[in-house]
Each structure stands twice: as C-alpha cells, then as structure tokens.
C-alpha cells in the first residue's frame, strides 16, 4: 500500500489552473525530488501533501485513509512541511526549539537537541543566541532541527537550500540524507538538478499544473 496517494487533485486560484488532475503514489522511505519552473504548481502540491491547503476536487490518502478522515493536527505531526524562508516565533534559538516540546506538552529533551545540533555542525552556544543574529544558513538548520526533534514520517521540503551557500547546502543535504536512511520519506522541491541526481530515487516534474515522472 502506498504511504501517500493523490487522486485527481485539482486546484485553481483566480481563474488560473494550478494543479490539474494530479495522480501520484509514494511508497514508504522514498526520496523524491520535485522540479519545475516557478508557477508550475510544485509548491502548491507540496503544501497540499502537508495538509496546509486542500484541493478544490480530488483526494489525498495517507496510509490508505483519506486526509479528511485524519485529525489534521495528528496528520501534520506525521507529515512535516518546511518553508524556503524559516519563520521563528521567539527571540532565542532555545525557545524556538522548545516550542516543539511545548506543543506536545512534553519536557524538553536537551540530549535530542544537542544530538541534532552536532549533526548540522552547530555548537551548544547557539541555543542562547538571538535568532536575528544568525546567518541564513544557521536559521535554516535550526528550522530543520525544530521539525526533526520529533521525527515525522514524511518530510516535505520547499526549496530549503535555494538561499544557502555551498557549505550550508552540503551540511543540510547530509542531514536530510541521514534522515532518509532512517526510513523517513522525503519529498523535496528543488531547482538543483545535481541534488535530484545525487539523492532522489524518483523525480517528479511539474509543468503547467501537470506532473510527469522524469528519468534519473
């Protein structure tokens, strides 16, 4: 059974068709990259998978169960979406990471935070820092860590490395690769063809709201 399945997804805004009959099946543990020019519908598709928007018609299924039958909050903890520009809600790095625990009413697992910080080459000191003093690359890594403190089953990444320099991109890629190796399904919107070739087992190419599979 497919982990995530879409059936006849259709979505339009202001008279423009953004998604037109999207039928996709994604198996557990797949590493998929999503490509396409801007406005091709790839980000809309990703947001739909993350249950942040719903299609005008068509259905999405997770583990065989229609999205509409899932509790939205429960589903979003299993399928985590990351924006190109991360948003933060508190001043210090620590508070922003603590938020994931607060939402689940759990005590902060400092060990888990440190473990993930090490994986993305960040030191413990950064926890005390104010978010506004971080570089773009550090912000993106902290945002990624925040989504991984409680491992989701599917990770949706919307061009998260497109604004990063070479080194930060490499560090981020390594962590995502490691996450994927743990069996987490990754769906990654990217413009970088090398990233697709290097990591993906499938490439989905969006063009004018339609999707076709690209050969690796």
């Amino acid at each position, binding site marked *: 059974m497919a982990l995530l399945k879409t059936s006849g997804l259709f979505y339009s805004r202001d008279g423009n068709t953004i998604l037109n009959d999207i039928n996709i099946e994604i198996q557990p543990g797949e590493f998929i990259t999503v490509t396409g020019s801007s406005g091709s519908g790839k980000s809309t598709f990703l*947001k739909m998978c*993350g*249950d*942040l*928007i*719903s299609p005008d018609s068509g259905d999405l299924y997770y583990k065989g169960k229609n999205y*509409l039958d899932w509790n*939205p*909050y429960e589903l*979003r*903890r299993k399928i*985590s*979406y*990351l*924006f190109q*520009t*991360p*948003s933060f*809600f508190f001043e210090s790095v620590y508070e922003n990471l603590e*938020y*994931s625990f607060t*939402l*689940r009413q759990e005590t902060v697992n400092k060990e888990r935070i440190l473990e993930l910080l090490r994986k993305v080459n960040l030191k413990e000191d950064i926890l005390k820092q104010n978010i506004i003093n971080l570089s773009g690359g550090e912000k993106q890594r902290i945002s990624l860590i*925040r*989504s991984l403190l409680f491992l989701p089953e599917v990770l949706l990444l919307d061009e998260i490395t497109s604004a990063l320099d070479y080194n930060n991109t490499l560090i981020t890629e390594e962590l995502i690769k490691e996450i994927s190796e743990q069996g987490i399904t990754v769906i990654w919107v990217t413009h970088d063809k090398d990233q697709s070739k290097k990591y993906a087992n499938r490439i989905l190419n969006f063009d004018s709201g339609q999707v076709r599979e690209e050969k690796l």
Partner: protein
Amino acid sequence: MSQEVDISFIGLMISSSLVFIALAISSYQKLELGKDMIISILRAIVQLTLIGYILEYVFGVDNLFFTSALLLVIIFNASLNASKRGKGIKNAFYASFAAILTGTSITIFVLVLSGIIKYEAYQIVPVGGMIISNSMIALGLSYKNLLSSFKDKREEIQTKLSLGANIYEASKSLIKDAIKTGMMPTIDSAKTMGIVALPGMMTGLILAGVSPLDAIKYQIMVVFMILSTTTISSVIAIYLTYKVFYNERKQLI
C-alpha cells in the same frame, strides 16, 4: 459653587464662528477638507439635536425596559461601526455585539451593585454611551490589527500548524497583539489623565458647576468602567473572530 449652565442661542451662534476659522485654514492650506468639515458639523448638529430630544423623552419616561432597549440600540450601532473596521471578518458584527453587550452588562451591573449609579435612564444612558463608544473604538483597532497580522504572518502561522499546533496555538501571539492594540488608547489616556487634558466627563461636570473634587470621583469611576469594558469586549471579540481565518480542516484561509 453650583450654578445652572445655560448657553444662549446667540452665544452658540457666535461660537460657530470657530468653524469658519477651521474652514478658512483648510481652504488656505488647500487641505480639501472643507466638504468633510461641513458635513461632519452638520451631522453633529443634527445627531446631537435628535439625541437631545430623545434623551429628554427617555429621561422623562424613565422606564426600565425602555432604558435597556435604548442601550441595546446604542450597542447595535456601535457593533455595526466596529464591524466595518473588521471588513473581511465574517462574523465581526455578531462578535462585536456579543462582546460589547457582555462588557457593558458586567460593568453596569457592578456599578449599580456598588450603588455608584442607579439603573435610571439619566444615569445609565450617558454612562452606557461612554463605555460602549470606547469599546467600539477598541474593537475597531483590534480587528484592524488582527486582519493585517493574519495577512502578514501567513508563513509563520502555517509553520506552526505544520509543527502540529492547533489553531489557537498558531494564532496565540496574533490574538494577544490584537487585544493589546485595542486596549492601548484606553491605557494611554488613563495614564495621561489630568496631565495632558481634563477628561470630557470631568470637564462637563466642572462646567456644570460641580466641584473639581467631586468631579474627579466620577472621573475615576469612568476610568475603571472604561478599562473593564474595553478589556472584556476586546478579549471576547477577538476570541470569537480569530477562528474565521481558518476553514473546517483547520487550514489558514
């Protein structure tokens, strides 16, 4: 120190020359406010004259039901006005009505219970009008803030939702900001009361011949009641409206 206040018609006519000064400045500075000024002055005269006659009648009747009905009409108008600021918030009118009604009822109940005022038209109507208009302004500001926050912070809210936050968690900081924005004028005016200006009610009492020491007691009561009503109204209105920014699927619209 008590004397009847009586403004003669001629005196009022002479004072209207002040409007001409304002009009002359507007014209000289090309502010293009002449039309608005004339309309606003005419509206004020007509509305105040009408309410003068209505109040004269209501105070004369002094019937519990009639007084309450008049308060409801004032709350209805205030809610309509506040909801205009919340254009785009589907249930703004109903939320405003429920919020102002609750805030006003609680405040008036406490004031009547404490014996400071009596539930009689000549006391309830002016006091009600004062707290209702302040709530109306607070709600208008709160709605405006809520609308712009939900527009500007889409990614922040969606990030929270994606981390598994419920819609209350995802909106918490926006709710707080909206309530604070609505309350700020009330808090600021309370802080500067007596330093920057003598408040309207106190000025009115002094002009009517009441001793300043008695007038401040009323003014302190006014501060209490406005603070309580605006707080209650803002909190209720924002908690009733923030949910309309989400659909049934708990997604940001």
